[in-house]
C-alpha cells in the first residue's frame, strides 16, 4: 500500500492551503476591483469631455468654472485624485454625482433595483423558455421543429432591441392595451409605496398593495420579455449546442441500452452534465442584463442603471460612472463566483 502522510499532517496542510486559497481569492478580487477602477478612472480622463461642464453648464464664467473645478478636486494630480477616490470607496463613500446632484450610492440604490427587477424577470423568461427549447431542438436535431426553434432563436438574437421594444409597445400597449405602458408603474400608483428594497414587486407586496403589485407586473412584462427574448435566443442556442455534444456521448447510448424512457435519457443523462456550462452561460447573460440595456431602458422610460451609467459617462460624471462600474463589476464577479460554487456542487469531477 502506498504510504500516506499522517492524517494530522494532511489536515494541517489542507487547512493551510484553504487559508492561502482564501487569501489568494480575496487578493484577486481586490486587485480585479482595483484594476477595474483604475481603468475606468483612466477612461474618464482620456475622454474629451470636460467633467466640470456637467456642473456649471456652458455659460459659466471663468471664475465659477475654476471654483467648481477646484471643488471637484480636478486640479490635483491624477494619482492623488485616484487615491482619494479609492480611499473614499473603502470608507464606503462613492462620492457625489454631478449630473443628478445626489450621492452616487443613493442614485445606484434607486437605479440598480429597477434594472435588477427587469433583468431578473428577463432571465427567468429566457431560462424557462430557452432551455427547454434548446433541449427539444437538440433532441430532434435536423427536424422541422429544430429548424423553427433555431430561426426563432436567431431572430431574437439579431433583432435590434429598441426596435422590438417600440413595436412591442405600439402593439401590446397602444393598440391592444394588454400591458402597461412605459415606466415602472402607472402614474397614479407612483410613489405610493415606500421603497424598501427598491424592487417594486417586493415593495408592493411588503406594503400589502396587491393592486400595485399587479400594476408593476403589467409594466414589467413587456420590457422583461424583450430582454427575455434576447437571452432566450442565446440560451437556447447554447443549450442546443451543449446538448448535441452530450447526445453523441457514449454514456447516453448506455442509458438507452438500459431501456430508459427517452425523457429520462435526455433530461437525466444528457442534460444533467451540461448544467454546469449552462449555468456559466446563464450567469454571464444575467450579468450582461444587469449591466442594463440603454436602449430598452430608454424606450421603456425605465429608470435603470444602464441609462444612468450612459448619461453619466456622456457628461464625464466620473463618480457616477465609477460607482456604477463598481456595482456592475461586483455583480459580474459575484455571479462568476456563484457559478464556480455551483460548478463544484453540480459536477463531481470538479470537487
Amino acid at each position, binding site marked *: 500500500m502506498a504510504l500516506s502522510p499522517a492524517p494530522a499532517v494532511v489536515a494541517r496542510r489542507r487547512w493551510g492551503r484553504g487559508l492561502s486559497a482564501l487569501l489568494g481569492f480575496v487578493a484577486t478580487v481586490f486587485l480585479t476591483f482595483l484594476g477595474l477602477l483604475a481603468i475606468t478612472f483612466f477612461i474618464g480622463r482620456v475622454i474629451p469631455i*470636460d467633467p466640470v461642464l456637467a456642473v456649471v453648464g456652458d455659460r459659466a464664467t*471663468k471664475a465659477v468654472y475654476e471654483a467648481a473645478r477646484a471643488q471637484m478636486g480636478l486640479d490635483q494630480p491624477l494619482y492623488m485624485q485616484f487615491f482619494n477616490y479609492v480611499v473614499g470607496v473603502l470608507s464606503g463613500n462613492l462620492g457625489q454625482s454631478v449630473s443628478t*446632484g445626489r450621492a452616487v450610492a443613493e442614485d445606484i440604490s434607486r437605479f440598480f433595483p429597477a434594472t435588477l427587477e427587469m433583468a431578473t424577470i428577463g432571465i427567468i423568461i429566457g431560462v424557462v423558455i430557452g432551455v427547454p427549447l434548446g433541449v427539444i431542438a437538440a433532441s430532434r436535431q435536423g427536424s422541422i421543429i429544430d429548424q423553427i426553434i433555431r430561426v426563432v432563436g436567431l431572430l431574437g438574437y439579431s433583432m435590434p432591441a429598441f426596435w422590438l421594444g417600440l413595436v412591442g409597445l405600439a402593439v401590446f400597449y397602444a393598440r391592444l392595451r394588454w400591458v402597461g405602458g412605459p415606466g415602472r408603474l402607472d402614474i397614479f400608483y407612483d410613489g405610493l409605496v415606500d421603497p424598501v428594497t427598491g424592487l417594486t414587486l417586493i415593495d408592493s407586496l411588503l406594503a400589502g398593495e396587491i393592486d400595485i403589485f399587479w400594476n408593476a407586473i403589467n409594466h414589467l412584462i413587456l420590457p422583461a420579455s424583450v430582454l427575455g427574448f434576447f437571452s432566450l435566443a442565446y440560451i437556447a442556442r447554447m443549450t442546443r449546442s451543449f446538448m448535441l455534444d452530450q447526445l453523441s456521448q457514449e454514456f447516453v447510448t448506455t442509458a438507452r441500452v438500459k431501456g430508459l424512457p427517452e425523457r429520462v435519457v435526455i433530461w437525466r443523462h444528457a442534460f444533467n452534465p451540461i448544467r454546469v456550462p449552462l449555468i456559466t452561460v446563464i450567469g454571464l447573460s444575467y450579468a450582461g442584463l444587469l449591466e442594463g440595456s440603454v436602449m430598452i431602458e430608454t424606450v421603456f422610460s425605465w429608470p435603470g442603471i444602464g441609462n444612468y451609467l450612459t448619461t453619466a459617462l456622456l457628461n464625464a460624471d466620473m463618480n457616477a460612472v465609477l460607482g456604477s462600474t463598481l456595482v456592475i463589476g461586483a455583480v459580474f464577479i459575484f455571479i462568476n463566483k456563484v457559478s464556480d460554487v455551483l460548478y463544484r456542487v453540480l459536477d463531481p469531477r470538479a470537487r
Partner: protein
Amino acid sequence: ATPADALVIAQNIDDIVALDPAQAYEFTSGEINTNVYDRLVGYEAEDTTVLAPGLATEWVADDAAKTITFTLRDAKFASGNPVRPEDVVFSFSRVIKLNLTPAFILAQLGWTPENMDDMVTIADGKVVVKYEGDFSSAFVLNVLASRPASIVDEVLVMEHAEGEDLGNAWLNTHSAGSGPFVMEDYRPAEIVRLTANESYFRGAPAMKSIIIRHVAEAATQQLLLTSGDVDIAKNLTPDQIAGLPADTVKVETYPQAAVHFLSFNQKDEELTPPAVWEAARYLVDYDGMTQSFLKGQMEVHQAFWPKGFPGSYDETPYTLDVEKAKQILADAGVKTPINVTLDVINSTPFTDMAQSLQATFAEAGINFEILPGTGAQVITKYRERTHQAMLLYWGPDFMDPHSNAKAFAYNSDNSDENYTATTTWRNAWAVPEELNAKVTAALAEPDQAKRNEMYVEIQKEAQASSPIVIMFQAALTIAMANNVEGYVNGATSDFVYYRLVTKQ
C-alpha cells in the same frame, strides 16, 4: 386616461442638474423654477411679452442714482411664511455668495459678495436695489425678471442649510417658493411632481398636480400621448406631430428665443476670409430645411435677436444660391475645395441639419466632415476653441437684446486666457472695435425705442460680416390632448406656465 385635476406631461428631463434657482441653469429646471418661484417682476403667463408686477406691486426707478425701489405685495410662501423684504435680500445675496453658474446674470449689476449688503437693502419695508454700470433701469428690470432672481423663503431654506451652502443642497430636491406650485417629489431621470399651492396670491391653479414623467424616447412619448396616458408630449419631432390623430390631439406652436447658427473658428486660417463667411450665407438651404424636417421646429431668421421681441431685425436677405456663393469665393480668390470638420450634437434635428449643410456647401467646394458628439463633448471642444466649423444654438440668458448682442457682436479680448462664454470669443472672432463700441453704447442707452434701433443696427452689421451665420429661430411644437386649455409657453423654458391650465 389621466385624472381631471392632474396634468401629466411626457418630457425628457435628464438635463436637470440642479433645481436651486441660484444654481439651476438647464431648460427643464428653468421651467420648474418658473412654476415654483416668483420674482419681483416678470413676464407672466397672461402675456409673456409684457413685464408685469410679480411679488413687487410697484417699483420706482431712479436712473440717475442707479437704484430701483420695489414695494412688495402681501403674499405668503407655500410654507405659510410671509414674503418679507428680508427674503428678497437673502435670495439675491445668496446667488451672489454661492457664485454658481447663473450668478453672472445678477453679477452684471455690479454685485459682488463683498458689496452685496449695500446693493440690496431694506428701507421702509421696501426693497432698494442698487446697480453699477453703464446701463439703464430697463435692463436691470429684465435682469431681475430672470431665473436667478427668484425669491426663496429664507426661514425655510435656512432651516435646511448645511455648513456654508445656504440651503443649496436641500433646494436642489425641494422647493421654498411662493409660486403657484410646490415641488413635491423629484427623482432624477424619473419624475417631477408639482402640487398646487392653494395660497398662491394670484389664486390657486386649477390643476392640483403637475406630473412630469421622464420619457427620453420620442416615439414612446407619442405612444403615451395617443394612448391618453399623458396630456402633453413635449419632445415630439415634426414628423411625428404630422402623424398625430387630429380628433384627440391638438398641436400648438410657440416661437422660441433660441437662434441656430453655423460658425467658423477664426483660429483656422482657411476660414478667416470674409468671402468664406459671405459665401456660407448663400449655401444654406434655408427654405428646404424649414419646409421639410424642420417644419414647425424652426423658421428662417438671420439675425441674432429673435423675431417677436423688441429690438429684433427680421429681414432675411439670404437664400440658397450656390452660383453666387461660388462667384463670391472666386472673386475673393479663395481656393477651393476647403475641407472643414463640422461639430454637431448627435441628436435630431442637428445631424439632419448638418447633412443638409454638408450637401449644399459641397456644391461650392466647401466640404464638411461631420463630427457628431454628445452635448458635453461638443461644448468641451467649443470652449477650447479647437473646432473648425460648429453647428449650435444660443438662447438668451435673459430677455434683453444685450444678452445676445454680447454673445454675437462683442469681443474685447480675444486672447486664449480670457475665457468668455460668448459665441464670438469661442469662435476666436476678434470683433472690430467699432462694433464693440456700438454694443457698449446700446447697453447704456436709457431710451427704449432708441436702444432697440441701435440693436437693429448692430444686427445688420453682424449679419453682413461675421463668421457666425445665423440661420434659424427655433419654435416649439407641442402636442397635447384636445381637452387641455391654458398651457402657456413663452419664448424660453423660463416662460412655461402651468397655472392657467384647465382640462374639460
